[in-house]
C-alpha cells in the first residue's frame, strides 16, 4: 500500500465516523422529542388501571376499581351522554345549515359574495371567543335558553358554522359545475341532482366537517360551563373539573379513569371517518 492510499483511507474513515456521530445525535434528539410528547399519553393509558395513581408515571398496580368508582359517581357517565347530546346536536345543525349555505356560496354569483365570506370568517373567530362571552350569556339569558341543551347547541353552532361554511365552500368549489349541468341535461330535477350527484361527491367534505365540529364541541369547556347551570346537564369536559373531595383534593383515580373514557369517542370518530373516507377527496377527473 502506498502512502497516498493510506491517507485516503484515513480521510474516508474519519468522514464515516463523523457521519455516524451525526446520525446518533439525530436519533437521540428525535427520541427525546417523542418521549416528551408520549409521556402524557402513557400516563393516560396506565394511571386509570393503577390502584393508587399519582401525577407521576409509574408501573401500575393493576386494578379496575377506579372505573367502578367513576361509574358510581352520579355525574360521570351521565356527562358523557350530555356531551353526545351537545356534540351530536351541534354537528347536525352545522351540517344541515352549512352544506346548503356552502353550496349556494360556491355556485351562485351575487354582489358582495366575497365580502360576505370574509365577514363570515372574521366573525367565526370572535363569536365564541372569550370577548363575546358576556353578551352571549345575556342573550341566552334573555331568550330563556340558559341552562338548556338547545341554547348551548345554538351558541356552539354559531361558533362553528362560519368556518364550516367556509371550508365546505372551498371544497364545493373543486367540484366541476359540469357534474350538475350534465345531470340537468339528462333531465334530473334539482332534488335529484343534489341527491345523486352533489351530495355523494361532497360527502367526504361533510365527514371532515362533522368530525371537526364533534371534536370541537366535545373538548369545549368554557361555553357549556357558563351556559349550563345544573350539574346534571354538564358535559364531560365540565364534569371532569368537578372531581374533587370536599376538602378540595383532586380525586386522581376518578380523573384518570374518566380521562380515558372521555378520549375514546373522539378516537373512534377519527378512526371511523378515516376508514370510511380515508380523508381522500373526489375531485374532477382530468384526462
Amino acid at each position, binding site marked *: 500500500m502506498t502512502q497516498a492510499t493510506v491517507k485516503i483511507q484515513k480521510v474516508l474513515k474519519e468522514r464515516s465516523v463523523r457521519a455516524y456521530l451525526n446520525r446518533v445525535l439525530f436519533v437521540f434528539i428525535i427520541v427525546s422529542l417523542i418521549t416528551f410528547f408520549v409521556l402524557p399519553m402513557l400516563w393516560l393509558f396506565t394511571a386509570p388501571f393503577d390502584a393508587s395513581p399519582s401525577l407521576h408515571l409509574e408501573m401500575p398496580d393493576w386494578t379496575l376499581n377506579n372505573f367502578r368508582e367513576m361509574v358510581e359517581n352520579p355525574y360521570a357517565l351521565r356527562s358523557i351522554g350530555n356531551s353526545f347530546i351537545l356534540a351530536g346536536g351541534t354537528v347536525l345543525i352545522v351540517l344541515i345549515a352549512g352544506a346548503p349555505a356552502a353550496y349556494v356560496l360556491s355556485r351562485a354569483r351575487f354582489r358582495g359574495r366575497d365580502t360576505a365570506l370574509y365577514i363570515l370568517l372574521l366573525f367565526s373567530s370572535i363569536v365564541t371567543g372569550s370577548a363575546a362571552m358576556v353578551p352571549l350569556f345575556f342573550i341566552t339569558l334573555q331568550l330563556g335558553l340558559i341552562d338548556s341543551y338547545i341554547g348551548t347547541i345554538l351558541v356552539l353552532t354559531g361558533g362553528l358554522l362560519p368556518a364550516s361554511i367556509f371550508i365546505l365552500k372551498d371544497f364545493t368549489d373543486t367540484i*366541476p359545475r*359540469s*357534474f350538475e*349541468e*350534465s*345531470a*340537468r*341535461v*339528462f*333531465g*334530473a*330535477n334539482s332534488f*335529484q341532482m343534489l341527491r*345523486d*350527484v352533489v351530495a*355523494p*361527491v361532497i*360527502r367526504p367534505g361533510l365527514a371532515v366537517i362533522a368530525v371537526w365540529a364533534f371534536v370541537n364541541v366535545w373538548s369545549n369547556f368554557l361555553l357549556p360551563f357558563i351556559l349550563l347551570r345544573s350539574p346534571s346537564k354538564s358535559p364531560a369536559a365540565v364534569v371532569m373539573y368537578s372531581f374533587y373531595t370536599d376538602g378540595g383534593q383532586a380525586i386522581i383515580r376518578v380523573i384518570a379513569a374518566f380521562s380515558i373514557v372521555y378520549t375514546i369517542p373522539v378516537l373512534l370518530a377519527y378512526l371511523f371517518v378515516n376508514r370510511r373516507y380515508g380523508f381522500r377527496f*373526489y*375531485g*374532477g*377527473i*382530468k*384526462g
Partner: protein
Amino acid sequence: MGSVEVTGLTKIFPPDVLVLDNLDITINDGEFFSLLGPSGCGKTTLLRTIAGLESASAGQINIGDRTVTHLSPGKRNVAMVFQDYALYPHMTVRDNIAYPLKVQRVAKAERFSRAESAAESLSLGKLLERRPSQLSGGQQQRAALARAMACRPDVFLLDEPLSNLDARLRLEARGFLKELQSEIGVTTVFVTHDQSEALALSDRMAVLSAGKIMQIGTPREFFHAPSNVFVAEFIGMTPINIIPASISDSTLHFGGMSVQLAEVDLNKLHGGRELVVGIRPEYLHAIDPLSASSNIEGTVRLIENLGTHHMVSIDVDQKVVRGLVPDGHEPSLHESIRFVPTLDRLMIFDSQTGEALIHGLSGSVIQDR
C-alpha cells in the same frame, strides 16, 4: 327527428356583454355540424344555449318540430358530452351510463341492458365495474359518449370532447367519433377551436367570431372559398399568405409578379378598391430559376419540415411568404427562391372589409423575361 333550427338567437351576459349576436343556423337531421372559432367567440355559449344551460336573450330554438327555447334542459331530449366528460366519480361506469335512464324512470333491467349494449358498442364491456378514475383518458371519453348514446337523444351536443386527449389519441378518437356518428346517424353539434378537427369531421360547419357567424358551409367550401380574410386565416393547416395587390389596366400585381386577368374576373373587381391576394402555401410552388414566368422571389429565412413537404418562408418586400416544397427539393437557407401560385386556387379579398371577391382566378401568369 333531430334537426336544429336557430333563428335570431341573441345572448347577452349581464350587464351588457353581447355573446351571441342575432344568429341564424339550420342544422339538418343526421348531420355532423361543427361550431368553430377562436376562444371567446361564443361557440360554447351557443351550444349551451341549445342545451338549455343558458337562456336565450332573444330568438328561437327549434329541435325537430318542437320549439324548445324556453324548455328546461331535461325536456329537450338532447345529450351533452362535456369537455371534462363530467363522469360521476362515485359511480361505476355502468351506473354512470345508466344514470340518465334512471332519471327518466326506465325500469332497472332495461336500464342496465341498454347501458351494457352502449358500453359494448364502444368497447367498454370489460370496464363496467370500474370507477371513472380507473379509466384512461380515451376510455373516459368513450364512457361519456356511451352515456350520451344510451339516452337515445334527438341531438348530440359535444363540447370539445377531444381536447383533453393527447395528440396521438385525439386522431384515433376523431376517426372513431366520425364512424360512430355516421353509424347511429344522430344529429351532432360539435364545438371545437381546432380547425383541422372541424374540417375532418364535419358535414357542414360554421365559423364564429365575436358572437357573429362568419360563414356556414361544407369543409371544402371553407378551405377553397372562405368568405373573408378572417375565415381564410383561421382555416388550414398552414397559415395562408395575404399579399397586398393592385390592378393596372387588366393586370393584377402582387408580391412582384403579374397576372393577366380575364374579363369575368375584372368585372368582379370594378370600382378601384384596395385589394389583397390570399394564397395557401399548398398552392404556391417553386419554379425553375431559368423560367420566363413572372414570380414571387425572395430569400429563404426559414425551412420547416412537415414530413412529405417542407414549408419554406421567404422574405418579399419585408413580408413573409410561405410556400410548400416537396421533400428532397427544399432549398438551403438564405438562398433565393421563386414561387408561382396555382391561379385557380388564388383568392382576392377587399383589403378594407376583408370580404372575399374572387375564389380562383381564370387569368394567366405574364411571361416577362
